């Protein structure tokens, strides 16, 4: 399958990008950082073509639908959105070194999808046969991706802040943007993610209401998405609350992303068994 080959090429491009960013941090040679971004960018282009091809392949198989219908397709799409959001941030603010803390997320996703998940194209079951699928999944994952980028930036913040206290500027971490800038970028990434998550929850509720007559039923997936929303709402208020600025806000961002990942993967992997009692 041609899309499968292209997904592999994209994975390799993300690996190369991550390694180049690591080399960039270690050596501080600017051209390595540029190559890292270029590699991520070309990987994104290849992956975009691959997603388009997979979409087309599903139509050729006679089961045409957007490639967002199972775990494999969602993990691939998640990686794509992470790289997209990162590159937009890079384009806008030009702090290249952030790539070293964001590309690993995208690489992890692609590697898992390519090596560990079934990549067969399946026809859509009745519950997913709706245009809402596209709106809901796209908004949610763009939101998740912005949170992934924010999490990477927060980890940098925490490293930088710890190292900053050490004498002599703290070695490698001294090369990171100043904590003030990282704090601001963290906020900006969440500023993008929060409205998208809100829209994702609203489109999900609209779909549920249209398909089942209940916009909210406290199902574990819904509840966890609300938990994520609460955590980031707390983050946004933390910025204007005395004693919550900086380090605590960075931790909230990391916790928020952990909750996001649990909402996305954990609910299906761990809670489905328990949840089956309830149904």
């Amino acid at each position, binding site marked *: 399958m041609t899309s499968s080959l292209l997904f592999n090429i994209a994975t390799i491009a993300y690996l190369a990008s991550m390694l180049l960013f690591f080399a960039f941090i270690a050596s501080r040679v600017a051209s390595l950082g540029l190559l890292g971004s270029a590699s991520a960018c070309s990987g994104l282009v290849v992956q975009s073509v691959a997603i388009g091809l997979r979409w087309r392949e599903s139509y050729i198989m006679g*089961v045409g639908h957007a490639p967002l219908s199972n775990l494999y397709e969602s993990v691939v799409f998640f990686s794509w959105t992470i790289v997209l959001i990162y590159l937009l941030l890079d384009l806008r603010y030009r702090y290249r070194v952030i790539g070293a803390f964001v590309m690993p997320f995208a690489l992890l996703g692609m590697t898992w999808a390519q090596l560990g998940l079934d990549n067969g194209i*399946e*026809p859509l*079951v*009745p*519950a997913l*046969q*709706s245009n*809402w699928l596209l709106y809901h999944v796209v908004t949610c994952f763009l939101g998740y991706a912005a949170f992934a980028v924010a999490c990477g930036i927060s980890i940098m913040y925490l490293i930088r802040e710890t190292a900053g206290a050490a004498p002599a500027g703290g070695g490698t971490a001294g090369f990171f943007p100043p904590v003030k800038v990282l704090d601001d970028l963290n906020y900006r990434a969440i*500023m993008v993610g*929060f*409205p998208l998550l*809100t*829209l994702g929850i*609203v489109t999900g*509720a*609209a779909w549920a*209401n*249209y*398909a*089942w*007559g*209940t*916009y*909210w039923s*406290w199902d*574990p997936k819904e*509840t*966890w998405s*609300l*938990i994520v929303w*609460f*955590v980031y*709402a*707390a983050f946004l*208020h*933390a910025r*204007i*609350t005395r004693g*919550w600025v900086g380090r605590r806000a960075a931790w909230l961002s990391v916790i928020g992303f952990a*909750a996001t990942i649990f909402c996305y993967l954990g*609910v299906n992997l761990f*809670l489905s068994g*328990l*949840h089956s*009692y*309830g149904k």
Partner: protein
Amino acid sequence: MNTERTLSRALWDSICSLKLAMTLLLTLAITSIIGTVIPQGNLAPQYVTSIGPAKLKLYQTLGFFDMYHSWWFVLLLGALAANLAACSCKRLPQIWRTVTRPVTTLDEGLRKSLPNHATFAAPQSARDLKDRMVGILGSCFAKPLVTEQDGVYHLYAEKTPWCRLAVYAVHLSILVIFVGAIAGSLFGFKGYVNIPEGGGVSQVAGAGGKTIDLGFVLRCDKFSASFYDTGAPREFKSVLTVLQNGKPLQGFDHVPIIVNDPLTYRGITFYQSSYGKAGRHVFRVSDPDGGNASTITVPSDGEARLPGGGGMHVLEATQDVAPFEPGRSGPAANIEVHGAAGQTQRIVVYANHPELNLQSARKNGGPVFSYLSGSESMYTGLQVARDPGVGIVWLGCLLMVVGVYCAFFLSHRRVWVRIKDGEVVVGGNTNKNPAGFELAFERLVQTIKGELAPGEKK
């Protein structure tokens, strides 16, 4: 101020406080986890035994089995609502003044407080300069308001002042959603109904064992399920008709509904949810010598009691066995018989082959079963809902999405200009994204410089 006043003041301040907002948001986030780990609603017997009576009692007392409706969770949501209403009430009046009654003159104190400002010397008179500045601001920023004060002109221009209100719109949206949800639970219902093909219902089962009258009859004309080659379901479809006084209603006659495409009539919506078999099968049971014969009817999806104790149910049935067993003919059924002592046997019984039925009975040592006839039909399972609050909820959601967008991505940008003979002072500020405004202000300053005195430096 007496102690009572200060106490109520302190209470009001804490209700309005951001610390309370943070605490409530994080408490809601953490406690919400409970209901995703502990099963909600009707408990399976094996779960009840697995946790033991002590835990069961504790969980029940704390409302963990319906935790999102438990008194303490509702209280938390109520506290959140009170907190955001109170803090909005406290801060809104001042923000409202900023938006509706801005400071329109630039005095020295204000100028010094502004992060961005510039002063130009220009040879023209105040009146000339004013006219030019009105033109420049109008084309580069926003149409200014002009105030004259002792021969000095003050210009004031602003962009999207109302975006300062966006965060309160988001707060309000949460309250609106709560109102919608409460309206839905007070005036709406959720129900469920099974309708066999050809049958009709005028009532559905609601929550807590209530029956709800529809006020009309809903008939299921047909149900069909189709599958992909892989065995995965492709489509579940019911054809429904609304009957009023026994007659099909125009426009609601033979309406197909599928998952993701429901039918709504008089505010009540029917959603395709499940399906099953609804046929009936008739058997004769007798002793091997033909005595004690009786006829029993078994529903496709249920069990029937046998005259001698125990029961039976139908695994599968056909009205013509020939395609499956060449050389034989007529109806046949594969049945499962449960003896009174708990033993289970699977037997194929026929209508046209009594000798085979007798043979099976001898082998198993039980009564003789023969299959007389049967019909196979389906029933459709429909989710039924009426929610008059849903429109309010969508209004709240819309307000929230628009509010969040405006709160994050729009900023209130203000520019003041003070003009006297020979001098122009410009200042500006923003409530958000100061770096972006600095660039925009710098461009404005360059434009003014170019317009007022071409080629001359400040």
